[in-house]
């Protein structure tokens, strides 16, 4: 009889014992596989989508220049436009496999190199803005949820909603109008920026003030609202009652129990969003002449610079995909429940 009493819990436990090692690898492989698939689809879509766009790249390339028909034909042959589209696609794929995005039409350089050059400033701008916005948003979100429906909540949530409703570029333009006299209005550094590290960093920081401020205001609201919602969700949880019953102080209950749980979905969202911030900064980069990918995208679209457009498209998607992966892995590291499933 005891035969059945003792082992029964172990054998028919509701939660099967987690398999740690194998599960993690499989999980990661699935995620990476999905990501690779998405990138492949983007490669295909990017190639054909931009080719459907109007405009003959060769005429755009030579617009306003005295060129003869023969010259145009030669350019066309040089860029391979005279070949069937599938051949062009094949060549493009072969190039990509060798890490070659092709040569930009508008800039006399490999598309990959140009994108690489612009990636740094974009990461600097959107990274700084995202970190600041996340810090501000999470902090305010936690505050407002804890004191929900209080005056702080009402005021701060209201402000967040207002900023969330503002088109970022308009905010940028208005800020430019207000504070353009105090801070640099464009670029990432002065042309005579000091070469020593610290003064140079200060110069760059000075140039970053307005664009970062704009981006932070544009995105922190969302973080705040999500953090508030997820903390409110956690605050209904029974384990908080347990924690209070144990005699924990209010702020300890919040810090030790409610916040870590509420942070899980929010952190994931922040990372998921981070990939988007890069492409979302296009307009802010345009307002503040920031030499980043966003501006490059606008220029490439204008010039119908196919290799550049395809390259940017892939890079932006890879940025999002990587951030998604990071978010997945992070959630797995932070949340033991995800680890088990």
């Amino acid at each position, binding site marked *: 009889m005891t035969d059945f009493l003792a082992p029964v819990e172990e054998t028919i436990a509701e939660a099967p014992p987690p398999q740690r090692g194998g599960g993690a690898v499989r999980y990661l492989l699935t995620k990476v596989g999905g990501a690779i698939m998405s990138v492949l689809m983007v490669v295909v879509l990017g190639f054909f989508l931009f080719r459907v766009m109007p*405009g003959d790249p060769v005429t755009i390339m030579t617009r306003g220049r005295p060129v003869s028909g023969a010259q145009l034909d030669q350019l066309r042959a040089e860029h391979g436009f005279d070949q069937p589209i599938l051949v062009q696609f094949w060549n493009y794929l072969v190039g990509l496999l060798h890490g070659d995005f092709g040569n930009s039409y508008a800039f006399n350089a490999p598309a990959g190199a140009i994108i690489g050059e612009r990636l740094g400033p974009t990461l600097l701008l959107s990274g700084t803005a995202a970190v600041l916005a996340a810090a501000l948003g999470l902090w305010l979100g*936690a505050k407002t949820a804890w004191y929900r429906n209080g005056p702080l909540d009402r005021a701060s949530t209201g402000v967040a909603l207002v900023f969330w409703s503002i088109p970022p570029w308009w905010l940028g333009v208005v800020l430019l109008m207000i504070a353009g006299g105090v801070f640099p*209005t464009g670029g990432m550094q002065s042309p005579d920026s000091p070469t020593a590290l610290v003064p140079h960093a200060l110069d760059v920081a000075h140039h970053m003030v307005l664009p970062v401020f704009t981006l932070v205001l544009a995105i922190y609201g969302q973080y705040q609202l999500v953090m508030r919602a997820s903390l409110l969700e956690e605050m209904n949880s029974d384990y908080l009652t347990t924690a209070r019953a144990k005699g924990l102080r209010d702020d300890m209950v919040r810090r030790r129990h409610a916040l870590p749980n509420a942070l899980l979905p929010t952190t994931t969202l922040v990372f998921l969003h981070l990939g988007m911030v890069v492409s979302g900064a296009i307009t802010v980069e345009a307002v503040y002449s920031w030499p980043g990918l966003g*501006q490059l995208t606008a220029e490439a679209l204008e010039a119908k610079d196919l290799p550049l457009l395809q390259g940017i498209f892939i890079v932006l998607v890879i940025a999002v995909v990587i951030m998604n992966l990071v978010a997945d892995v992070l959630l797995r590291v932070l949340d033991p429940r995800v680890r088990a499933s």
Partner: protein
Amino acid sequence: MLVRRRLAGAVSVIALVAVTVPWVAGAAQAQGEKVLRAGITQDLDSLNPFITITRVGTDLTRLTYEYLTTYDPKDYRPVPGLAEKWETSPDKLTWTFTIRSGAKWSDGQPITAADPAFTLNKMMTDKAAATANGNFVQGWESVTAPDDRTLVIRTKQPRSTMLALDIPIVPKHVWEKVTDFKAEPPLPLVGSGPFIVQDYKASQFIKLKANKDYWRGAPKIDALDFVYYKNVDAEVQALQKGDIDLMSRLVPAQYDALKNDPNIKLNTGAGRRLNEILINPGAASADGNPIGNGNPALKDVQLRKAIALAIDSRTLVDKVWGGYAVEAAGYIPPGFAEFHWPEKRKFDPAEANKMLDEAGYVRGADGVRADKTGKPLRLRLLGHAGTNLDEQGSKYITSWLKDIGIAVEPQMVADQKVNDATTAGNFDLAFSGWSANPDPDYVLSLQTCASRPNADGKGATPDSFLCDPEYDALYAQQLAETDRAKRIEIVKKMQQVLADRASLVILGYDNPLEAYRADRWAPFTTQPSSGGVIMNQQGYWGYYSATPGRTTDADAPAEAQGGGGNTGLVIGLVGGGVVVVLAGVLAFARLRRRGTADERE
């Protein structure tokens, strides 16, 4: 608490940076270097003089490389550059240039006739080297340098453009080692012009250093920086703040707003860009086959002329360009006064109506005339979405043409779509425009039969699809005419013919609007001397003339405009709002905290 402290830390770091940095940045400038900083908006495609075709790129090659001849700052006449003098053989096929002696490359090597001979021969033999300026050497027989000071060019036909060769001459000793003429050259460049490109950061800045050995004499400043601004308003603010010294491409409202700034000197000149409406006269490919879907009624020159008569350039100049443009006349813009045909285009809707009545276009019940096949005259008007002239101008044109019984449907589409449609002849009316050069050859060639595309609508840059024997004959004549005065006469005649064929309607010529820091710089040399520009010249005169000092501005318009001054109001409004909101939040937070600090669950 911890989070709050950290946040406070971040805020104070930002504040610190914001406060300290202006001095840090200022320190660099205070080292005594005299630098002219010019704002630019267009990106640079390449620093390779054989490749670059953008405005910025060609400006840089003009600054870095002296050409054989250049254009006079006063009136665009060809004047000596590397070539100090030249002569033509009686058959006008052989040109002999004498190369200046004593001029040196920026690396100290002497400049000899071997350099232009190398450059020009390279362009005739290497396809890559012909990318940007290959059209200049087309139809040439040979280029030789019999000695260090003599350059001989033989052409197959007489050419009137031999003194307008916009070809950067590169140092042979540097470029003869180059195998790939498409590659970017290493920095700093080796050049012969007044400023040499030293450093370049895409979309950020281009730095040039003054060439102390420049043969005309060293520039009066040490360096010239071009700084990128994608946003012109940000650029204007940078000018007002003193981050840059010089800028162009202002829009009228900005120009007006700057009138109030005592530190800023404004400059405008006669337009060098022609803006037109193309009227599809029955587009055809180069071999004469009709292409496109233009309205066949427009083949009637009377109808086209009536349309031209119904468009009021004066109003467009006043309303769309805010007065900063020149009223429509000849095809060559007034900025190039020599070739400009100054007879103003007429605006006379009554006359247009009369012409149409006489030509048999009968008005229908809805006021729209019928064409000769009885169909109502409905025309598409293609414009560039987002371009102010096209967007606003189309509204005026629609209403003017309505007055003469023609229904117009404006279609504003992406630039590239306009290009595609106009190249393939798929339009009735379309906005178009060209920036002209001191030598009118290129813009004139756009209206010849030869500029029409091949059968599939590709392979050329057609403009209005005019194919007129008289015009083409005149075109060939001016190309072969080396006597400048005679050539001018022919070009003016051609403009008359163009006006008469009415395959295009000139709308006007927008003026370049520029501004610079009057408190730091003496007046710049403009090209042409009266009503000319500082930036975007056909030459380097503006930058070369930069002299630190002060522009005493006796004739500065002192009238207070409605603009500028309101910035304060905005700052007050918006800033005030922000402060109130922040204060409110803080106050609430404090109140709340004090009230519930202890007994809180």
